[in-house]
């Protein structure tokens, strides 16, 4: 091993959502400083929410992230409904899962094809990739569009959908629209299967790391809209316990907060979910998972892309199931009477647990809000991963290779930096 010193600075990470950078110094053959810098300007949503009616929350929090607005809306309505004493009935529960499936399909397909795949095939972007492998990119675009179509069915548009509200959906889709979409989705299943096989065939580095996977679980199904918070180290708590168990801290180099569990970094997202919940996959997805030859739980972080593809397959399978016997609801939403209180919501955004906490006063207005997005939870993990993986990769490798590898590692988390930049300090101001 050489004893060289090197500064690697990636001023703008590409093919990630939002704006971040990486500063890395290698001193005498060892990694010195390593900082995932997030400089996306803070947008202070929690403050804007204060004083607003709870009915405005879904439209407002959607604007935190254009890639996973559904997740924001779903965590928010869960928290608010728990305060207002609304119980989603079976129709709503199904439709919210369908809504979520749409976002997973869209987001996962976008990440796999447009952001991650070029790394593994030696291209710098998806358009160049399409030049050589048009079928791969087209498959991705079609799947992504199918996810968008599901979100549109319930939400009107796929970015900042307008259909969801506290208490349900503003409108139930017509049977005809649902049937049309169902037929389209059915034709895509083979594509999703092929996608899983294709991700499993990619030249993924073989490397194990020691980390804690954290996800929702014990939901009676593969988790999306609800569950307990569980981990590979035996954690099993109600979502209300999140703040006690997990701590956030601010670091000077980032507008996003770092999350820790027992002082350690941890992983959220597709691989964490798959590691903890693979036994709840539907049969067809489970079979595909076995076919890949990957044994979940997996300690190889590069298996994230396979987990993502498997989740896409699962979401498509689930969407088809949910649409199969679809009936429009007479009353797609319940109206609530105002109540004061504190409520929690946690759902599985495409990138991992998205946790919300709201306090309402007796007029139904927000007193305080706290939002913990998945990317800030993964931030410490990404830095730890980089330390380990780059060492394994070999710090004496050419600089260009080190850079490329570092970027591939970061991208593997599908970080969403726009989401990551509005968090609260640890203490909620008590008013």
């Amino acid at each position, binding site marked *: 091993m050489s004893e060289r010193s090197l500064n690697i600075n990636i001023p703008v990470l590409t093919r990630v959502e939002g704006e971040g950078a990486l500063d890395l110094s290698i001193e005498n053959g060892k990694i010195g400083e390593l900082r995932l810098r997030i400089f996306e300007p803070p947008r202070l949503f929690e403050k804007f929410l204060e004083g607003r009616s709870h009915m405005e929350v879904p439209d407002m929090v959607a604007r935190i992230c254009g890639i996973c607005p559904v997740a924001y809306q779903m965590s928010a309505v869960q928290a608010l409904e728990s305060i207002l004493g609304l119980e989603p009935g079976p129709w709503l529960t199904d439709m919210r899962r369908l809504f979520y499936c749409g976002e997973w399909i869209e987001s996962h397909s976008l990440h796999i094809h447009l952001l991650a795949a070029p790394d593994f095939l030696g291209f710098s972007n998806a358009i160049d990739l399409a030049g050589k492998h048009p079928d791969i990119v087209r498959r991705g675009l079609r799947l992504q569009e199918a996810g968008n179509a599901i979100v549109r069915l319930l939400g009107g548009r796929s970015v*900042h959908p307008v259909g969801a509200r506290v208490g349900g959906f503003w409108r139930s889709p017509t049977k005809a629209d649902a049937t049309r979409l169902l037929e389209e989705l059915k034709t895509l299943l083979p594509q999703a299967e092929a996608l899983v096989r294709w991700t499993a065939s990619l030249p993924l580095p073989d490397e194990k790391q020691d980390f804690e996977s954290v996800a929702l679980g014990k939901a009676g199904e593969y988790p999306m809209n609800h569950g307990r918070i569980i981990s590979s180290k035996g954690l099993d708590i109600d979502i209300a316990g999140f703040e006690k168990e997990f701590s956030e801290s601010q670091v000077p180099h980032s507008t996003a907060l770092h999350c820790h569990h027992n002082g350690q970094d941890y992983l959220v997202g597709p691989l964490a979910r798959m590691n903890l919940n693979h036994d709840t996959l539907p049969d067809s997805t489970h079979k595909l998972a076995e076919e890949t030859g990957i044994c979940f739980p997996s300690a190889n972080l590069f298996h994230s892309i396979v987990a993502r593809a498997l989740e896409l397959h699962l979401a498509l399978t689930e969407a088809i199931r949910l649409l199969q016997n679809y009936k429009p609801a007479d009353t797609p939403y319940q109206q609530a009477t105002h109540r004061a209180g504190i409520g929690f919501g946690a759902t599985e955004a495409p990138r991992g647990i998205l946790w919300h906490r709201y306090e309402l006063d007796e007029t139904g207005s927000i007193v305080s809000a706290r939002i913990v997005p998945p990317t800030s939870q993964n931030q410490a993990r990404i830095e730890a991963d980089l330390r380990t993986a780059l060492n394994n990769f070999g710090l004496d490798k050419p600089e260009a290779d080190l850079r490329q590898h570092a970027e591939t590692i970061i991208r593997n988390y599908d970080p969403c930096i726009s989401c990551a930049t509005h968090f609260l300090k640890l203490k909620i101001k008590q008013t």
Partner: protein
Amino acid sequence: MKNTLPRLAVHKFSSCDGCQLAFLNAGEALLTLSRRAEIIHFSEAGWENPLAKVDIAFVEGSISTPKDLERIKAVRESANTLVTIGACATAGGLQALRNGVKQFADWVGDVYASPEYIQSLPESRPISAHVKVDLELWGCPVTGKQVLDALGDLLNGITPVNSSEPVCSECKRSGHVCVLVSKKEPCMGPVTRTGCGALCPAFGRACYGCFGPAEQANTASLAKQFEHMGLSAKDISRRFLFITSATQPFSDTGHGYLEQEDV
């Protein structure tokens, strides 16, 4: 052949990334686009040449930090035609709710343990507040159709059309139930510019103004009507001070009612 194609950039400032998805969600049109133009800069999609000269630059996001301010000037320098996309870039965005808020510094303190690390301008402002903009596409988010139609026109050498008629006109063409008249919902459609396809009324709910003010936005009259319908001054101010709170007619009417609320 390839290098004679028009050159394109997509830049991001303070935003949710949702408007750039107009490109990434375009499906087959994304591939068509790549045959008609050469993408030079688009970080999220893998191109990083922020300063390279381009024919058309799309800008998402508002200006909210001192760094942004330097960067937008460079972007303007680099581009022949500069098109802003979305409510953040054309109107300051939802984050402009902080504009004029006296406690802004405290807010940063409330959100961050060490606010001294956070570099932020006191106001979130649209791109046009700082540099000349050639075309403003409104919406939170812009639709794929808006962006691709405008881009198609620009590539064909045609000035894009950019309608600012009210949501009501689209709503009526679509045959939706008027939620204002039939359900007494405080719909912002009459003063909001179209482009979304009157989505909210289609879902039986009141428009919340995410496309910004229409050409003739008689906000005072609509607000009066909201009063008649029983909305409080606070409720009315919140209708106008939401996604595009920094635009003139919305901001005036919204703050007017906010002050009423204060007394």
